[in-house]
């Protein structure tokens, strides 16, 4: 169906179901209950979950398939954001031109960066991409202020030209929309103690995620994707098999750059602002982490990784000392103090510390990411239930 085999179609269905029902799935706890802080079903977070999912899917097409580790992909996300916000300022508050422009601009920018960086491989490639991203970041912060807004970034103003839009009434704040549907409009459904929020922006971003995921499956299963995996496996053999690797890697680089641009454009569509900090190298590092955490080279892994990171970033950042004390309140006081003291550095503003630790633990113990971890566990169960041979054939295709 849709040019996919049964298994891949199943995966796509899973992603569609997860995104459609995310407002329910992410809000399992009743409003006002003690566990409500673990709910993630509010628009802002759900939007970010799917947008960074798109970013990671794209990054995985480059890193997961070819093995080229780019440390500068945030630059494309940032470039896409700037392109998007300009469309909103100049043309219209409708998000379509903004998203189209982000993808195009990020694509062109990644073509330039990729064309230069891909002349080298390995560590040189990583450092070149890092250098480009840091350069873009510095420029966006300083010289390019007329285009990027420098430190303050860019937001739509009432006075912007917006040549396709009717002038806004006095006192109305400019809001991004999709043919009249506003991104920050939500419908709230109250059932018993639960409150579920269905947000326009989220569902639009989710549609893009599903499309992005579908295209990524097609790429993975295409001869092109096979060639990219061959680049990772043995570039010398590939060249002596008559294939020129550079155009393949460059195409993968540009495709992943366009995915990053799409993510950047969607970010702008949701919060109508753009700033240089989106290009900082930590942002590039984060997408690397999402991809490897989920499982680089697998189809669904990066989506899971992005969801995992963004979810925990949100939850962990919200926990404060009071909440910790409440958790450990069942213990004797000295134990309670002890555990609070231990966990305190990792919560709230300590999220980056937690992130760094997750990073290290994943690389050390689970280089294949969550997907590999899950597979190992399920293999364990399979072996126990029956001694089924044929595990060899499962390995290459099982790269979901």
């Amino acid at each position, binding site marked *: 169906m849709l040019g996919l085999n049964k298994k891949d179609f199943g995966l796509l269905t899973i992603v569609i179901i997860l995104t459609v029902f995310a407002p329910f799935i992410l809000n399992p706890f009743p409003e006002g209950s003690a566990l409500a802080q673990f709910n993630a079903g509010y628009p802002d977070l759900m939007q970010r979950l799917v947008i960074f999912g798109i970013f990671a899917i794209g990054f995985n097409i480059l890193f997961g398939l070819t093995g080229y580790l780019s440390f500068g992909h945030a630059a494309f996300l940032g470039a896409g954001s700037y392109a998007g916000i300009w469309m909103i300022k100049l043309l219209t508050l409708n998000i379509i031109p903004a998203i189209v422009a982000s993808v195009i601009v990020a694509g062109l920018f990644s073509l330039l960066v990729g064309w230069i960086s891909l002349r080298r491989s390995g560590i040189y490639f990583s450092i070149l991409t*890092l250098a480009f991203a840091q350069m873009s970041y510095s420029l966006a912060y300083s010289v390019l202020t007329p285009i990027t807004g420098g430190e303050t970034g860019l937001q739509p103003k009432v006075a912007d030209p917006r040549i396709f839009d009717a002038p806004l009434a006095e006192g109305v704040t400019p809001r991004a929309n999709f043919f009249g549907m506003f991104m920050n409009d939500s419908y709230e459904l109250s059932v018993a103690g639960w409150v579920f929020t269905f947000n326009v922006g989220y569902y639009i971003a989710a549609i893009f995620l599903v499309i992005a995921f579908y295209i990524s499956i097609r790429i993975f299963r295409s001869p092109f994707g096979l060639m990219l995996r061959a680049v990772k496996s043995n570039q010398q053999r590939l060249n002596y098999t008559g294939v020129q690797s550079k155009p393949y890697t460059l195409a993968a680089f540009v495709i992943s750059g366009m995915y990053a641009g799409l993510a950047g454009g969607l970010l702008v569509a949701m919060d109508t602002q753009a700033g240089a900090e989106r290009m900082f190298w930590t942002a590039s590092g984060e997408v690397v982490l999402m991809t*490897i955490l989920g499982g680089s080279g697998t189809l669904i892994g990066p989506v899971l990784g992005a969801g995992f990171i963004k979810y925990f970033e949100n939850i962990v950042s919200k926990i404060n000392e009071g909440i910790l004390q409440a958790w450990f309140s069942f213990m004797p006081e000295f134990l309670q103090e002890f555990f609070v003291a231990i966990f305190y550095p990792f919560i709230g503003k300590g999220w980056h510390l937690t992130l*760094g630790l997750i990073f290290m633990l994943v690389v050390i113990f689970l280089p294949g990411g969550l997907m590999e971890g899950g597979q190992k566990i399920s293999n364990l169960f399979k072996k126990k239930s029956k001694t089924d041979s044929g595990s060899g054939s499962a390995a290459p295709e099982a790269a979901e």
Partner: protein
Amino acid sequence: MDAIILQILNGLDKGSAYALIALGLTLIFGTLGVVNFAHGALFMIGAFVAVTISRLLTFSHVVLDETKTDFLGNPLKVEVPYIYDIFGEAAGNTIIDWSVPISILFAIPIMILIGVIMERGLIRHFYKRPHADQILVTFGLAIVLQEIIKYFYGANPIPTPAPEAFKGSFDFGAMLGMEGAGIIYPYWRLVYFAFSAIIIGAVFAFLQFTTFGMVVRAGMADRETVGLLGINIDKRFTIMFGLAAAVAGLAGVMYTPINSPNYHMGMDFLVLSFVVVVVGGMGSLSGAVLAGFLLGILESFASMTVVLETLPGINQIIIYLVAIIVLLTRPRGLMGKAGVMEE
């Protein structure tokens, strides 16, 4: 002419820092074959060793000074550093004043220890893993280290002054017989440059003239052969890692008076130092040092008002720009050897 000399001088201190970090990076890369993204964190830790030592030295207890009274007539409470109790007030003050240079003594063993722990505990297990994994795990470590420092020392820069004797500036032009040329240069920057030159000289001499250094250099050239000779290369490489950590740490200690240390200084320098290593040529020690100074000076020239008027913002990107041009025209860097990291 005077402007040019001034810019060269201005570039020397940053160049020195780049050179020292890049030297350590290259040592680690050349000997262990590991790309260490946590190396900048070692520089930062060095700086915070200086901060800690200066705090410890001024660690005080409260005494009642009977000779003075506050406005209510009670004896005045004054904070007296413990160091006064040991050495007396005058000597104590000198020691506090010289806290940054004194930190060097403490930083050397601390940094070597940290380096050895890092190598034994983490890096060692990544020798055979792909470069991407090495980058990622050391990147994670760098984040962890800088967040730990942030947790204990806060996010704001902590001023750590140089000894009184080296505060202020002097007229370098006068020394060159160019009175009134206005080449005013802070003393401490000169100290930093001289210090870096000594460290770099010491590292090169160590590698050149000791048997240990000879083995390490041989190992950098061809690890397998040296291994076949029955020499325990691994142990030496651990020591090498400790040494590289110490070099980065010392660079950090002495840098504190120039720029108040903050938790992200390591990453700021690391990214640039990587670029320096690549420009110098991966695996070339002299290339790393040369490129460090060259890029430091270049950056300082790019910050001149005249340059900025014609090319605004060039000071922010000059190093990256040079790196890109060098990599495209001389893929192995200025002094890189063939066959290093070429895949």
